[in-house]
């Protein structure tokens, strides 16, 4: 092979590898930024639809969407993700939240796709997409090659579990996995952006969740936006002190990711020192003094909650129907498994 061509293929392979690593980071840090991440993990006061919902309803919605996306065909997850994302427009500063949510969806999809696609074994793809059973780890019959990883790049990539050839089916499969995970993420952020820790506390106590678990959730809800604040300072101070001095353009974003990684330890140490105070502050205000609590504002169920519960019922019914009609996932794989066991070596 032409050494120049081989070199070009190796360089391209490394760029492909880095793409999966760097592209989500570039979107996260370049388009969303630590400030944006703080905004989508923090409650802001408003009185639109989501803000009026009982947190239990929102938690039930998140669980339902997670379940439905997991057990149905991949495009149902995609539709749920897009549908949930569209509802961001009803939030405070909806357009900005929608934009931030879109970037998160996009970066998560690319990141998850690229994590999954190159490492999925061929027999798995043949089972899942062409209903063909194969036990050979090298047989790519039926699969469409997109890129063959050249040597010596592959000797490194193989250590990470990469298959020798990237196929269009593996990308398709990676996409399926990604969109299933994105839908719950988008929906969970709605819960965080529209509920105060106090809302969550009283709602979860109503369903008798242990107070220790609720308190951990409450502290986490309060702490996560602070992590981004602290990281923001830690990153900028590192740049100021000379980190990435010669970096320009998109390369700077890679350095930013590096600075964020390095900044995690001091940021967490800083926050843990604060978290101890938070715990003392709660305990010295009679938290857990009694088995139960009373509330300034009682937990209410509004018409909006009934509407969401109706949507939840419809989603569950849809998931059952989809599975029955062959658009499910769990039954599909089970069937594949059983058919394979009857035809070994095919």
């Amino acid at each position, binding site marked *: 092979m032409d050494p120049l061509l081989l070199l070009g293929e190796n360089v391209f392979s490394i760029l492909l590898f880095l793409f999966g690593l760097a592209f989500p980071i570039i979107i996260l840090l370049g388009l969303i930024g630590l400030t944006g991440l703080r905004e989508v993990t923090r409650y802001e006061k408003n009185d639109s639809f989501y803000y009026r919902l009982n947190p239990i309803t929102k938690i039930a919605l998140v669980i339902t969407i997670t379940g439905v996306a997991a057990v149905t065909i991949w495009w149902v997850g995609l539709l749920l993700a897009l549908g949930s994302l569209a509802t961001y427009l009803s939030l405070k500063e909806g357009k900005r939240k929608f934009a931030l949510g879109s970037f998160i969806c996009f970066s998560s999809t690319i990141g998850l796709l690229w994590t999954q696609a190159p490492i999925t074994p061929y027999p798995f793809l043949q089972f899942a997409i062409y209903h063909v059973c194969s036990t050979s780890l090298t047989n790519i019959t039926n699969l469409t090659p997109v890129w063959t990883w050249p040597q010596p790049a592959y000797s490194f990539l193989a250590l990470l579990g990469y298959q020798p050839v990237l196929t269009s089916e593996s990308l398709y499969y990676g996409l399926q996995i990604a969109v299933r995970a994105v839908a719950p993420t988008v929906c969970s952020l709605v819960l965080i952006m529209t509920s105060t*820790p*106090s809302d969550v506390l009283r709602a979860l106590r109503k369903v008798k969740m242990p107070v220790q678990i609720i308190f951990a959730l409450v502290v986490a809800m309060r702490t996560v936006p602070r992590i981004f604040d*602290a990281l923001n300072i830690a990153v*900028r101070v590192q740049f100021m002190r000379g980190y*990435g*001095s010669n970096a320009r353009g998109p390369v700077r974003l890679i350095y930013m990711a590096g600075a964020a990684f390095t900044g995690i330890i001091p940021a967490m140490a800083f926050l843990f020192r604060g978290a101890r105070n938070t715990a003392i502050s709660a305990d010295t205000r009679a938290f857990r003094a009694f088995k139960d609590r009373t509330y*300034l504002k009682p937990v209410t169920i509004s018409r909006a909650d009934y509407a969401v519960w109706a949507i939840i019922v419809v989603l569950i019914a849809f998931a059952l129907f989809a599975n029955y009609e062959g658009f499910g996932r769990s039954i599909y794989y089970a069937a594949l498994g059983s058919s394979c066991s009857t035809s070994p070596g095919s």
Partner: protein
Amino acid sequence: MKPAEIRNLSFSYVEDGRPVLTVDQFDVEDGEVALVVGKSGGGKSTLVNCINGVIPHVFRGNEPDAVVVYGRRVKDTPLPQISTDVGTLLQDPETQVLNYTVEEEIAFGPENLCLPQQEIVARVEEAMQTTDITDLRERETYLLSGGELQRVALAAVLSMRPKLLIMDEPTSNIDPEGTARIFDTLTKLKGASTLLIVEHKLERALPFVDRVILVDQGKVVFDIPKAKMVDHLDKLVEAGIDVPEHYMFAKRFGMDPRDLEGIRKRVVSEGIQLEIPKRDNSGEVIMETQVKAEVPGKVLVDAGITLRRNQVLAVMGRNGAGKSTMLKGMMNFLEKEVDVEAKLVVSGVDLSRRPIQERGKYIAYVPQSFDLMLINKTVEDEISYSLRKRGEKNYSGKVDEFLGLFSLADLRKRDPLMLSVGQRRRVAMAAALSSGVKIAMLDEPTSGQDYYHKEVIGKELQMMKAKGNSFIIVTHDSKFVYRYADSVVVINQGRKVLEGTPEEVFKMSERYSIVPPTEYYLRSPELPLPVEAKRG
């Protein structure tokens, strides 16, 4: 039953074993207001933590038997139960507020007490009125200033209607206006509750208290009525407490320390020459900056400053006035949503359009949360970080120099995050300056620091100034500014409203909630005393 009784306490933390607090006898009487003073690490927080139950229920120790609160042995009483009698307000409002809205935060305690809803509503209302925050009811807590947030934290404790209220350095992290509002609330509480206050600001707290307790090196050095405090000033000075200068004169002249007017007249009539801090504003201009930062509908800051060689320039103003925003605007630290126009010229080089890394070659920045700077495994790596990142080869000599200058030589192999607060701050300062920059910006370096550590910072500034450095420091501490700054800029609502030497600025600064220190008035007998100083 007494609010608190301690007998024969010798407390040590489990992991250490050495006693950190030894108390033979200590009582808190019903209805009194007691002030606990002492250096950081001297044992005063340990003392109050033994009473509020944080020891042994959060921090484990060896012998908590000896503490009884309202007839209940602290060791045997769960912390939430103790909290029904004893309320605790901590130093940092940011970390003690749990909820996103003010009303929810104040209701948190009464809700935990399982009170009926009407009772919770009544208590929330009462606490908000006492702390004068009814206008903040619907606000998000993360949007409040430090002073407002601390009053919310206080209201959240008061809504528990504690019989004994412990306040552990409640004004250390907030501005003078916020401090004044906290002390206003204390005035309302005096007589109605028993108060135990840990506070560095001796002069500020004294008018409110009945009794003064000095805790130093793990022992109660004295426990006396306030009236007798003048007789014990030497012990306070020995223990590193910030004793107002006029108290020393009051003792010398046999006068009432609250009579500042009389004391300064006497100082003049006795012909005593008081040393006036030297100001050096003669150096050439090394930095000129103008920052305009705005968000839609609001100008956050539109101000500029000029820094001279070997100058310490203090930037003062209320919380939210735009001081830190100006600093961050200079360094390109502001968030994307903030529209910033910044002109920054250092030593003739226009850095206005240069990235952070370029600006960092000329200017160092130490944030208020200086721990966030500490990313290396050892102190020496931390100090060499900038030099290494900027490609300097022979840096070991410089590292040794800064280890020596900041008294860190013995700690060079230690993990910076495992050091004490004072040591960590020194590492951050040394790390910021070691790259050889001549300008450093320090955001609230004295916040939360006791007198001893403030003096250490002041000495460091003087030392580095003598080596050719210039500093911009954002601070609320007028005493620190009077002692160590050459020049002051006051920012109000984003605009520069005053500029000059501390003496010039303090003449008019009260209108911007900057109360000059009494040592300034002591040296300016021609000036009328402000209301704050007259309180004594």
